[in-house]
């Protein structure tokens, strides 16, 4: 018998019916809701490709059972911005050309969003620490950290004006 689970994804209420309450959130996002932006990297909560915000906190969702997010608010990379209305982080990543293969970027941008939400003026060391749960194998680290610094400055300037 399928069970139903209700939660919010990118501001919209969703209800999914699943045979197994332990289905990882990533598979619900990708295979049930068609949100492919949350990438699968390991299934072990080690690499950070699948980072999402759950009630505003960054969490890896590749091994997170769907029942644990019932009633909660989930934000994925698709919920940050669009090509027409990019989030300052997304714009900064494009400006800095911060990526090579780009597979890790969804999770990294979500981790950076959580950082800037709690710390609008992070130092380079704080940015690095906040991203240490995300692996980038191509070696785009410095560009990525520059992009986060740039986005932080844009967000601060926007808050002041």
């Amino acid at each position, binding site marked *: 018998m399928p069970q139903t689970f209700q939660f919010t994804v990118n501001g919209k209420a969703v209800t999914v019916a699943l*045979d*197994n309450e*332990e*289905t*990882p959130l990533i*598979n619900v996002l*990708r*295979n049930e809701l068609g*949100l*492919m*932006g*949350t*990438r*699968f*990297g*390991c*299934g*072990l909560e*080690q*690499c950070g*490709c699948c980072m999402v915000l759950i009630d505003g906190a960054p969490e890896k969702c590749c091994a997170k059972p769907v029942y644990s997010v019932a009633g909660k608010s989930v934000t*994925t*990379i*698709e919920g*940050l*911005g*669009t*090509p027409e209305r*990019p989030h300052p982080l*997304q714009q900064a*990543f*494009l400006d800095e*050309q911060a*990526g*090579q*293969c*780009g*597979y*890790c*970027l*969804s999770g990294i*941008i979500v981790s950076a969003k959580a950082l800037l939400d709690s710390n609008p003026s992070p130092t380079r*060391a704080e*940015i*690095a*620490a906040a*991203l*240490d749960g*995300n*692996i*980038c*194998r*191509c*070696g*785009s*680290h*410095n*560009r*990525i*950290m520059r992009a986060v610094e740039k986005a932080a400055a844009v967000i601060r300037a926007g808050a002041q004006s």
Partner: protein
Amino acid sequence: MNAPLPGPLADNPRLDRWVAFPTPGTVTILTGRVEIGQGVLTAMAQIAADELDVALERIDIYSGDTEATPNEGYTAGSQSIQFGGVALRQALADVRALFLSQAAQVLGCEAGELSVHDGQILRGGAPTAQDYWTLAGSVNLAVDATGTGRRKAVSAFKTIGASAARLDLPNKVFGAPAFIHDMTLPGMVHARVVRQPNRGASIASIDEAAIKRAAKGAIEFVRTGDFLAVIGDDETTVEWAGAAANNHVAWQNVEAPAASQQEATWLLQRPAIDRPFGAPASADPQGKERFEATYTRGYLAHASISPSCGLALFKDGRLTVWTHCQGVFPLRAALARELGIAADKISVHHVQGSGCYGHNGADDAAADAAIIALQKPGVPIRVRWRREEEFVFEPKTPAMVVKVRALLDESGKPSDWTQEIWSPTHNLRPGAGGNLLGALALPNPPAAPPPGDVPEANGGGATRNGEPLYAIPAKRILHHLVTETPVRTSALRGLGAMPNVFALECAIDELAERAGIDPVAYRLSITSDPRARAVIEKVSAMATWDAQAPAGTGVGRGIAFARYKNKAAYSAVVVELQVEEEIRLRHVWCATDAGLVVNPDGAINQLEGGIIQSASWVLKEQVRFDSGVASFDWETYPVLKFSEVPEIDVELINTRDEVPLGVGEATAGPTAAAIGNAVSHALGARIRDLPLTRERIMATLLQS
């Protein structure tokens, strides 16, 4: 008499294999090179924009498709721009000439009066109402290239040489479907393979009930020979079944790599084929001062951030495969060879995956999907490897032992150089005869290919960069091609270049120290190639090298240089680091001469990536064995983290040269050696074995 066509164009002379003008205002460029995170599609679009005189925005680029694009073999070896880019330029120069000739006929003038501006044909600089698209119907591109179209001069480039934003990045930044993993087909089912542990292992028993219990949902078994897979509609169920199956399938004839086989020195006593290159053995060296040192590097994983994925559909006698591998044509040939289907019944399409850095599991995942699809006609199959499966079963880059022997002249400079290399093959790609992993479990498994390595003409495998570029009167390589290995080995970024450059550039530093000469001055004193001198001088200026501190203070600087393959880009690297119990990289400077650079920011991105990946190899990475591959996740195979990455400054020089030189792998060797030399400078003692782990540093400190 025409000049010979560039290689890839000679192989694929039909012009409609390179370009099409399907709709007004757009140009479709077809390329056999595929995107693996290196930005090649953006660079090819830039090349096309300049050679055809159209805006970059008009270019649609389509790549890696056996049914449509040129066959350019593998996207590997930093060859895409150096060779593929030149081929595309010539193809488009021919196409442009055909269009101008047709326009001249239509307009009743000489082609020499005409020019092109953003696809519009101009006569004497004025519009003519003709453009590529009005003419496309009357220009026959189903003809072979002649090589008579004149390629643009470097001075005429507008798009080439200007940094362009990556075309593929927006989808990745906004979380749109961008990868093969995000692909779905109607009626697609998910699959996981229960991996045969090794060639020759056979299934003794399967506890299907236990696997079904673990799946917690509907699954089906697909078996042919000892190839076993679980499939089902729900990915979660299939993933759980695939993970659990390891504990519920018993195998016979299992051979697991042992801990004793883990270190490179294990290779020294193994059966090998001796391959000598270069100068004959030196005459009696009596009276000459000698230097000898041995350097080692363990097995490495590609450790791609996405586990490999493949899709396949077998329908109406035709097999269609989607893959993120580096060569769709070689994969098609291997599928035909090892699965017993005619190649003309197979289509292979490239879809992007994550960075692969060489021969990872991509080809094998595609073959897995194909094998299952053949068992389930009409059903689209999606295989995605598990993380553990990726680490354990991807081909590893081989461990290597490199022994440097040099004879020195009176001034302490090398007069005779021998680089003796023990290494298994660096090439078991399907296109080199390497087997597809899943095929080994089939009822009639293919034979193992004969031992071999990448030919010297292609830069060599284990021998790559084994010969110093320095002015040394006699240079030779002796490669012992080790033919028995505990794990499958194949290509990783730079192949043998990293261990060889690590060895020879550390040896050069040891010789400089022995001679009492500064490492930069010593290198310059034995360097005659002006481009090599230029990058060494440039990087030492960037790093203000001449303020080098005394050795043994805990802070060190090191320099290293190589020209990749001795025929691609020149790169010199300076590293500054601090050593306590562990190594802390502070700053890396890099000067590179890659000749003509199409996308400078893209090239710098590649060089930075190569520096960080090499630093990760040198400081952290080694595949461990312990009754099997014991590096199976990101905790047992850690890589460099954000907080461990140094500041990096990269500068390109000589970027408007006529000839492009491959850049993607240029920094791997110099970075490794510069770190080795900086650690030696910091400690006042040399570590010759990689990775430079805490244990090795502590042991060195205790000895010194």
